[in-house]
C-alpha cells in the first residue's frame, strides 16, 4: 500500500468513527432544548427527568465525540503536513474559530447543565441547554466551512511562497457551498437524533415498561423526524445537489453513474457501474429525470464522465456511486417511515401499532449509515483533488511519515476504537435499559460526610 493511501485511510477511518458521535449530539442538543422548554413551561417533573435522561446520553456521546475529535485537528499536521503548510492560513482559520467560539461555550455550559442543576435556577438550567445546543451547531458550522473551502475554494490568493491567503474573511465564512452543505448536514444530524429518540420510545412500548416516557419519546421523535426527513430532501438536498452539479460536474457524473453526457439524462435508480466498459450493468433508469432534477427541464444537457479528462475522474468511482445511492435510498425510506408514523400518531394509533414500532426501532442505525454515506459522497466526489482544482490529494500528505509508520498508527486507532465502540454500546444500552426514572443510589456511592 502506498503512503498516500494509508494517510487517506487514516483520516477517513478516524473521521468516520468520530462523526458517529457529533451527529447525535448536534441533533440531540436541539431535542433536549425542546424537552427542557416543555418542562419549563408546564413545570413538569416528567419532562425534566426526560431531559436529564437524554442529557446523560448526550454526555456519553459528547465525551466520545471530544476524545475522537482531538485526533482530527492533529491529523491535519501529522498526516497532511504538505497540505497544512500551504493552506493553514485559510482553513486553519475556521478550525481555530471552532475552538475559540464553540468549544469554550459548549464545554462551559455542558458542565453547568450536567453538574450544576442544584446550584442554578430552572431558567438558568434551560439556558445552559440552549447554549450547549448553540455551541454544538457553531462547531458544526466551522467544520463545514473548512470542508467547503476544500470543495469549493473561493476568496483566496497565493503568496510568493505558494501559501494560500484569505482575501475575504466573510466570503470564506459565507461560502455558498458551505451554507448549503451546512443546512443539509445539520438536518441529517436532527434525523439521527429523532430516529434514536423514536426508537427508544418504541423500545419501551414494545417491552411494555416505562410507557409514559415511551409515548413522550415517540411523539417528540416522530414529529422532529418528520420535519427533518422532509427538509433533508427538499429544499436542502435538492439545492445542494444542484450546486454540486454546477461546480463539480465530475463528481455528479460519477455519483449518478453517468458515463456518457446527454441531453435529457436519465436517473439511475439501481445498477452497478462498470469502469471497464464505461456503462451501468443491470440498470433501472427513469428517463430524463436527472436533467430535470438538476436544471428543472427534461431537455437539459448533463455532462458525462466521457466529457471529463480521465485524470480528473473521482478515483474510487464505484464506491462513490454506491455511497451516494445508499444515502439517497435511505433518505427516501426516512421520509416514508416518518410520514406513515406521523399519520398514525395523528390518528392516535401509533402507540399500539406494533409493526410501526418495530420499523421505528430497527431503523435507528440507518441515519448513521446515511450520514456516513453522505460524507463519503462529498469527500470521494472531491477526489482526485484535495483542494478542488488547485491541489491534488497526492501532493498533500506528509511524505516524511512513511507508509508503515502510518499503518502502525492506523492499526492502533482501529484497535482503540474497537474498544471504545464496545464500551460505548454497553454504556448506552445500560442507560436506555435503566430509563429516565431515578435509580436507587448504589451502596458504595453514598458518601461519608
Amino acid at each position: 500500500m502506498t503512503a498516500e493511501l494509508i494517510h487517506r485511510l487514516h483520516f477517513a477511518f478516524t473521521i468516520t468513527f468520530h462523526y458517529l458521535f457529533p451527529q447525535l449530539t448536534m441533533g440531540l442538543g436541539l431535542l433536549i432544548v425542546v424537552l427542557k422548554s416543555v418542562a419549563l413551561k408546564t413545570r413538569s417533573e416528567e419532562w425534566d427527568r426526560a431531559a436529564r435522561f437524554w442529557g446523560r446520553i448526550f454526555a456519553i456521546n459528547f465525551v466520545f465525540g471530544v476524545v475522537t475529535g482531538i485526533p482530527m485537528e492533529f491529523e491535519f499536521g501529522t498526516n497532511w503536513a504538505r497540505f497544512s503548510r500551504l493552506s493553514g492560513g485559510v482553513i486553519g482559520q475556521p478550525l481555530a474559530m471552532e475552538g475559540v467560539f464553540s468549544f469554550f461555550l459548549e464545554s462551559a455550559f455542558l458542565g453547568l447543565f450536567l453538574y450544576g442543576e442544584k446550584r442554578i435556577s430552572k431558567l438558568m438550567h434551560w439556558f445552559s441547554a440552549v447554549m450547549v445546543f448553540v455551541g454544538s451547531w457553531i462547531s458544526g458550522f466551522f467544520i463545514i466551512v473548512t470542508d467547503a473551502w476544500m470543495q469549493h475554494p473561493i476568496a483566496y490568493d497565493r503568496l510568493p511562497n505558494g501559501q494560500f491567503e484569505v482575501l475575504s474573511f466573510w466570503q470564506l465564512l459565507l461560502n455558498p457551498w458551505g451554507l448549503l452543505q451546512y443546512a443539509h448536514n445539520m438536518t441529517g444530524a436532527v434525523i439521527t437524533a429523532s430516529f434514536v429518540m423514536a426508537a427508544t420510545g418504541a423500545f419501551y412500548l414494545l417491552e411494555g415498561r416505562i410507557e409514559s416516557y415511551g409515548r413522550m419519546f415517540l411523539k417528540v421523535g416522530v414529529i422532529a423526524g418528520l420535519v427533518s426527513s422532509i427538509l433533508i430532501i427538499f429544499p436542502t438536498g435538492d439545492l445542494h445537489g444542484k450546486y454540486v452539479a454546477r461546480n463539480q460536474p465530475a463528481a455528479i457524473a460519477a455519483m449518478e453513474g453517468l458515463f456518457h453526457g446527454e441531453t435529457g439524462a436519465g436517473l439511475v435508480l439501481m445498477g452497478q457501474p462498470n469502469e471497464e466498459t464505461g456503462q451501468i450493468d443491470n440498470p433501472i433508469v427513469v428517463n430524463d429525470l436527472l436533467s430535470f432534477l438538476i436544471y428543472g427541464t427534461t431537455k437539459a444537457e448533463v455532462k458525462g464522465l466521457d466529457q471529463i479528462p480521465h485524470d480528473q475522474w473521482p478515483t474510487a468511482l464505484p464506491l462513490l456511486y454506491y455511497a451516494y445511492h445508499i444515502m439517497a435510498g435511505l433518505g427516501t425510506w426516512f421520509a416514508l417511515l416518518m410520514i406513515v408514523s406521523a399519520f398514525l400518531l395523528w390518528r392516535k394509533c401509533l402507540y399500539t401499532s406494533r409493526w410501526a414500532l418495530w420499523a421505528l426501532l430497527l431503523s435507528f442505525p440507518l441515519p448513521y449509515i446515511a450520514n456516513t454515506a453522505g460524507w463519503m459522497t462529498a469527500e470521494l466526489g472531491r477526489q482526485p483533488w484535495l483542494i478542488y482544482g488547485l491541489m491534488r490529494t497526492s501532493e498533500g500528505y506528509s511524505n516524511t511519515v512513511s507508509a508503515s509508520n502510518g499503518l502502525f498508527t492506523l492499526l492502533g486507532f482501529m484497535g482503540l476504537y474497537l474498544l471504545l465502540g464496545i464500551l460505548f454500546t454497553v454504556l448506552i444500552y445500560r442507560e436506555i435499559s435503566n430509563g429516565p426514572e431515578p435509580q436507587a443510589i448504589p451502596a458504595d456511592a453514598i458518601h461519608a460526610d
Partner: protein
Amino acid sequence: MMMGFIWFWLVAVMIVGYVVLDGFDLGVGVLHLFLVRTEAERRTTLASIGPVWDGNEVWLLAGGGTLYFAFPLLYASAFSGFYLPLMIVLWLLILRGVSLELRNHIEVGIWRALLDGLFGLSSALLTIFFGAALANVLRGVPLQADGYFFLPLWTNWQPGTYPGILDWYTVIGGLVALVALTLHGALWLTIKTSGDLALRARRIVTPLWLALAALTVVSLAATIIVRPASLNNYFNYPITFVVPGGVIASMAGIWFLNRNAQPIKAFLSSGLYLFFMLAGACWGLYPTLLPATTGADRDITLNRAISGPHTLAVGLVWWSFGMVLAIGYVVFVYREFHGKTDLPEGVH
C-alpha cells in the same frame, strides 16, 4: 514584524492557558491514585474537576488551531516530525477522557478500579510527554533543508545533532512537568476538598515542592548547556531577567502561602510559576520557533513560518473577540462551581 511578535505571544498565551488550567486536572489525575482512601473521597476528588476538565482541554485545541493558521509551516513541520509521540499523546488523551467520564456510569468495583488506574496512569504519562515535548522544542530538532524532519522515539539518549524524542535532557523536562503539575493538582485539592483529604493534599505539597525546586534548577542549567543561545535574549534585554526572578518568587509564594493555609493564593502562585517557566522558555527561543540541530540557517523562525498579512489581521479581530468571550465563560463556570466540591446527583 509586529504581527509576528503579537502572534508569537498569543500562541504562547494559549499554551500557558492550557498548562495552567488542564495542568491541575492532570495533576489531580496523578494524585488521586495514592492520595484518596475511600470511594467517597475519590468521587469528591474527581467531581472537583468533572465540570471543568473538558473546558480546560479546549485550550489545547484552540491553541493548536491558532498555531495552525498563524504559523502553518511550524504546525506542518512539528506535527509530522513528532508523529509518533503525538499519536501516543492522542491515545492517552482518549483513554484519559473516557476513563474519567465513564467510571461514574459503572457500578462494578473492579471496572472502576481499572478505569481509575487508567485515568491516573494516562494523566501521569501525559504530563511527562508534554514536558518532554517542550524540551524537544527548546533543544531543537534535525530539520532538513525543506523544513521537515522525523524523530524516532529515542536513539542514544544524547541531545546531539540527531537526537530522539527522549534523551537525558527531554526526560528532565518530562519530570519537571510531572512534578510541577502534580503539585498544581495538590494545591487545587486543598481548595476544593475538606477534612482529612484536604489535609493530606496540603501535606504532600512539601515533598513535591522540594523535588520541584531541585528539578527547576537542574532543568535551567541543562537548558543552558544544551542550547546556550537560550540566554541571548536575556543578556540583550537584561530587564527580562525578571522572568526567572518571577519563577523564584512564585516558588517562594507556593511554599509560604501553603504553610499559612491560604490555598487559593498558593494555587495562583503555582499558576504563576507555570506562567513564568513557560514565558521564560518562549523568550529564550524568540524569534525562533523551532531551532534546528542541523545548523541555525535551518531554524524555523517567525518570519519563515508566519501566515499572510491579511489572514493575521483578520484573525486578530475575531481571535480577540472570541477569547474575551471564552475567558468570560471560564470565569463564569469557575464562579458557579466555587467553593468546596459537592457530590453530583444528576450523574451516577
